[in-house]
């Protein structure tokens, strides 16, 4: 369970260009549910997602994960939580060019120092589950858009997180690939994972598997 209490986020505080991205957001996200944060561009979806995923801190307010206050934790602990709890799927696949699909997938696990054989097996299993095991040795620049997206999904799952965060995952996918993506999300839900997605794509927020849609506008939740 994730709880946000009176969360505010201000960019460039004190400068003439000061900008308030989130204003007093209160939100409770239940476990094992698919939650979609919906809203127009600039509504604060990505900012909210990055605060939930421990990638940035709120300017004010508190964030609780399983009842534990995490806002004030030092960076090291926050990174540890991020690594073990969250799997990130970005708008772009954000893969590192010049190295193989397998290396990209294993990247989040490097700082944990897991044994190479175990890690490789885990990565290969993940790639096989999404039908891209045959591309394991390929360089990422040779992949199609769908394959790159699936590679980034396998990477998000390598540390076996129980919360999946996806930021506009279908923004660069065609309809067929977008449906394929939602099928994958359904499997996550079936495995008991919590999924939080930001999107303004009807194909996502109107999907039957979505449990809750949160509307955001001008940094606030619309009731």
């Amino acid at each position, binding site marked *: 369970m994730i709880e946000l209490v009176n969360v505010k986020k201000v960019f460039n505080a004190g400068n003439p260009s000061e900008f308030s991205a989130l204003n007093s957001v209160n939100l409770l996200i239940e476990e094992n549910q698919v939650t979609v944060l919906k809203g127009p561009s600039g509504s604060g979806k*990505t900012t909210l*997602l*990055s605060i939930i995923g421990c*990638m*940035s801190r709120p300017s004010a307010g508190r964030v609780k994960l399983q009842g534990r206050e995490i806002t004030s934790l030092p*960076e*090291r602990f926050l*990174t540890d939580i*991020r*690594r073990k709890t969250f799997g*990130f799927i*970005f*708008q*772009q696949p*954000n*893969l*590192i*060019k*010049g*190295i193989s699909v397998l*290396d990209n997938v294993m*990247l*989040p696990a*490097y*700082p*944990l*120092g*897991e*044994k*190479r054989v175990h890690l490789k097996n885990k990565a290969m299993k993940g790639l096989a589950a999404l039908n891209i095991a045959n591309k394991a040795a390929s360089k990422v620049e040779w992949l199609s858009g769908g394959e790159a997206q699936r590679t980034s999904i396998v*990477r998000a799952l390598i*540390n076996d997180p129980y919360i999946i965060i996806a*930021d506009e995952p279908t923004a660069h996918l065609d309809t067929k690939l977008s449906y394929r993506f939602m099928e994958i999300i359904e499997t996550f839900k079936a495995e008991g994972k919590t999924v939080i997605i930001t999107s303004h794509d009807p194909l996502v927020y109107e999907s039957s598997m979505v449990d809750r849609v949160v509307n955001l506008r001008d940094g606030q939740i619309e009731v």
Partner: protein
Amino acid sequence: MRHWIEKQRYIIDFTLSSLLRRKVKNVGLLALYTLIVFILASTMFFTYSIKKEASLILKDSPEIVVQKIVAGRHDLFPVDYINTIKKIRGVASVESRLWGYYYDGLVGANYTLLTPPRNGRFTDTGKSTAKTTVVDSESTDNSKPLFELNGAVLEPGTLIIGNGIARLRAIGTGDYMPFLAFDGNVLNFKIAGVLSSQSELVSSDLMLINEEDFRKLFGIDNSYVTDVTVAVNNPEEIAMVASKIKKRLPQARPIIRDEILRTYDSIFNWRGGMMIVIFSAAVLAFVIFAWDKASGLSAGERREIGILKAVGWETSDVIQMKFWEGAIISLTAFFTGVILAYIHVFFTGSIVFEPALKGWSSLYPNFKLTPFVNLEQLTTLFFLTVVPYTVATIVPIWRAATIDPDSAMRFTGE
């Protein structure tokens, strides 16, 4: 611990692949870095070895050389003085020497003319009784000879010349060389031999000449010599004997061996220091380049660091990655530069900076140095090259490592 080692292995693996992905940039940096190490290492190896070489040769040089000084100027040494010196307690022997400089206007070079020592393997008449080697007056059997003669015989009317002169004048054994004597007459000497190249550091511009010919050329009367060398029974008494000589012969100037060694030391220290000062500008330029390289991260590199942080790498993991990157580049450049410098100095005779470091006239010696490298030198070199690079890159690396992890989320273009 196992996790920690495994983690370092992953990070090093990733660092190596990162370096290979930016081949052009990193090869350029590595080449420049290697060049800097090579220049500094060559200067240090050369200076240290030449000093060592010179001190080994001079180790067996005379304990005291006595010259006559008139109004601060070096003057001819009266033979009568020799007896006065011999009477000083502690003096083992006194040998007279005849030597002088001759300027050759044709090639613009100065030669050093010397009559071979009497108790070397030459007789008073200049006829060789031995095959090849002339050792300095106080040499012991196991010492390095001052110069070697390749079996030549020094007879009246002949010369034995150093390798530098032979090269410069393009002459050899059997050729004639004209000299303008003190009275304006031209003296023609036949080249009887060329000194071995082994001892070229001290013999490049050297000419061995018969005593009679020397006196004819320079117009020196039999009652004078150029200077004398003094051997002392007890090495502890050298300074005392020198002061006694000074007291009994106020016009004499005794020069002890340690003073000569000190002069050599400071000459080569000065030359090496001069080179290092010149190249310190190059080191500074390199530090600026390294800073620029580390701080001017490309958009691609910033994005990569953003992705790593977003997928769970800590700031310290990124710093470790950058540390390994720096270590791989630094150590590769350091060892490559040192090895190349070693080959350059000890196998190719320092072809690059030979003119700046050796010799002081147009007669550059051409010789191979014996390798002398010690840990102190390598440590100094390490601190002159690797440490500035590390210091120059540490701040930009830290700045790069603290990129917000959510920058990957904000990135929307490929």
